[in-house]
């Protein structure tokens, strides 16, 4: 008995000592430059695909080798909980120096003063390589502060089963001559037969997808009055895409109603099996298709549909600098290296997304026909700032009002007028509080 107690006591002391020792490496992170020691920067990255993580690590390694005076520690986070993590670390005054996130999250962080305004820090070369539409996604506030560098963008394309398209002898659209929504509806009807649905709309999270597509007909869903107040609007432009998707599910019966409850990647197994001929998805999902599809399965990526235009709402992944960072200038230098055209091409390829860099977009690896890269990269020209990005209170409107209302509408439980009324009336009540 005595022996056991002694062992337990020794174990506790050893463990406590080990814990203390383990932490000492981290304490050095905040140390300053004095005495010729290198500046240390923490870079919180959200890369998660295998190739993308590898590309990130490789670029950081190259930087550290070339810049012994500014050493960057690569820290991997995860998309699911990065905002909880950041809020705590911002409030506690101990955030990472360089932060990877997406543009919708930046508006809130910027308004609370957590992020550094990069407007006067951006090197000319980086600024001119990225088009203004992308910079618009990270520009907030009355003074037009720039709170991040946009580097990867997502657009919606259509992934289709090539054999089914060929068998139905439909016209294969090109970026210069895309399908209109009318053609799309007709083709979906044509492809619906023998247990196959023309299309599947996974609508577990319907809001961003619908709002981004609504721009095809100029639907913005939000308007700002002369008094500066933002309200929700659901007029004829906004109703177009809502009505068209609803028709495919309930009138044409060319879209599988069972897919409505699915998350983005859930219809893929049915797609490989031929249960759905087409899937409107984000470009990054091509990675899963390329990796998972059976060997004899042929697929193509088709360009975004055209309403009155092919415009889509753009959301960018971004790199920002924390307001509390002790080394903002060094962090900016690292960001400009990290996002130079060659590196952006690597990162875009790794994540199967579109680079914002115009030079990177012309990289041969991003314009090849393989895995639909040519179509995906060409779709970047249709991206405009998603209007909802700038709406304070959008997140609450999305989760409390729009998600349930749109789900009920697409499920056929409420009419278009009813969903419009709810989005506006309940939505305005939410927005009033902001």
């Amino acid at each position, binding site marked *: 008995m005595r022996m056991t107690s002694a062992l*337990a006591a020794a*174990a*506790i002391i050893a*463990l*406590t000592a*080990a*814990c*203390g020792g*383990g*932490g*000492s*490496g*981290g*304490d050095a*992170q905040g140390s300053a430059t004095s005495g010729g020691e290198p500046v240390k920067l*923490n870079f919180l990255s959200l890369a*998660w*695909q*295998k190739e993308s*993580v590898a590309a990130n690590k490789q670029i950081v390694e190259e930087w550290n080798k070339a810049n012994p005076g500014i050493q960057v*520690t*690569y*820290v*991997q*986070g*995860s*998309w*699911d*909980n990065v905002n*909880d*993590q950041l*809020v*705590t*670390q911002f*409030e*506690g*005054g*101990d955030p*990472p120096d360089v932060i990877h996130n*997406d543009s919708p999250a930046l508006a809130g962080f910027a308004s609370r003063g957590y992020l550094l305004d990069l407007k006067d820090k951006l090197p000319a070369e980086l600024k001119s390589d990225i088009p203004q539409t992308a910079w618009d996604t990270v520009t907030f506030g009355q003074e037009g502060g720039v709170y991040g560098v946009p580097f990867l963008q997502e657009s919606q394309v259509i992934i289709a089963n090539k054999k089914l398209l060929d068998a139905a002898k439909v016209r294969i659209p090109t970026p210069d001559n895309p399908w209109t929504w009318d053609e799309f509806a007709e083709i979906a009807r044509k492809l619906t037969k023998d247990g196959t649905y023309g299309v599947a709309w996974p609508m577990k*999270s319907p809001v961003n997808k619908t709002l981004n597509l609504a721009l095809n007909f100029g639907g913005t869903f939000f308007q700002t009055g002369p008094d500066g107040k933002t309200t929700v609007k659901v007029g004829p432009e906004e109703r177009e895409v809502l009505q068209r998707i609803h028709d495919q599910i309930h009138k044409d019966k060319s879209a599988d109603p069972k897919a409505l409850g699915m*998350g*983005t*990647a859930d219809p*893929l*197994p*049915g797609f*490989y*099996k031929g*249960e759905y001929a087409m899937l409107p998805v984000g470009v990054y*999902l091509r990675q*899963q298709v390329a*990796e*998972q*599809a*059976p060997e004899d399965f042929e697929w193509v990526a088709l360009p975004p549909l055209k309403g009155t235009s092919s415009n889509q709402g753009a959301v960018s992944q971004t790199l920002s600098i924390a307001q509390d960072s002790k080394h903002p200038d060094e962090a900016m230098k690292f960001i400009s290296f990290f996002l130079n055209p060659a590196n952006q091409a690597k990162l875009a390829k790794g994540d199967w997304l579109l680079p914002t860099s115009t030079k990177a977009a012309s990289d041969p690896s991003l314009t090849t026909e393989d895995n639909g890269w040519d179509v995906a990269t060409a779709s970047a020209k249709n991206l405009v700032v998603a209007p909802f990005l700038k709406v304070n209170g959008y997140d609450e409107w999305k989760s409390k009002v729009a998600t349930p209302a749109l789900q009920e509408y697409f499920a056929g439980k409420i009419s278009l007028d009813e969903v419009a009324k709810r989005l506006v009336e309940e939505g305005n009540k939410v927005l009033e509080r902001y």
Partner: protein
Amino acid sequence: MKRPLQYAALAVYVVFLAFPLVWLLSTSLKTPREMASTDPSWIPHDPTLANFADAFAEQDLVGAGLRSLGVAVASAVLTVVLALPAAYAMARHRGLMSRMATGWVLVSQVFPFILIIIPLFMVLRNLELTNTLAGLVVVHITFTLPFALWMLQGYVRAVPRELEEAASVDGAGRVRAIVSVVAPLLAPGVVATLLFSFISSWNEFLFALVVLKSPDVMTLPLMLARFTGPEGVARLGPLAAASLMATIPSLIFFAIIQRRLKSGLMAGAVKG
């Protein structure tokens, strides 16, 4: 007639409990192509270890596992060391103080974690304990202590006071009575509390996410989260492989310690 039914019920229960683990094992051995099949099978058609190779190559699972083990064992042991005397005092000295302490313990369980996470982070920062495993141990102890106290108090109360009195009659002092009579009878309770604290700490994610910043101090749950992407899309293969690896240490810990989880030690100790 009763026996077979009991065995059948037990079998159903075991299958129910084992299902997620077996599914995890099966998924970890499948190729991405097979995972996307609409006809899932228990046994992979084309088993592969690539998911394990990827998981170990990309993340420092072994290092993170050792750190998690250190944090979990330290949290569990320290929780019990702190909770045991307090639980004894609260169970044996019933008075106003004891009732107030019990009430306070209950109230502390009502707070949602997310509410106190920012103040807690600031306290840790002032103590220079952010980004250290010692800081994480402190946080884990803080959060398991109330429940551990509650559990142990129940076990102490279950040891009849008469046994201590009998020891006193035989000439044992208070300390001797506690060490020789009460302590051995509390062993199953201590083991149960240890297990509870160990598992809570081993699985804990949110505080680790907030407190730990450098890759070289991160614990296992943080590594597992790295295989997930936005909108619930995940790299299922490596995630399943890494998760399977992450459950093994706690299974071993259970296997070692569960033999001490026997009850009935006190059967017949006191008559009436």
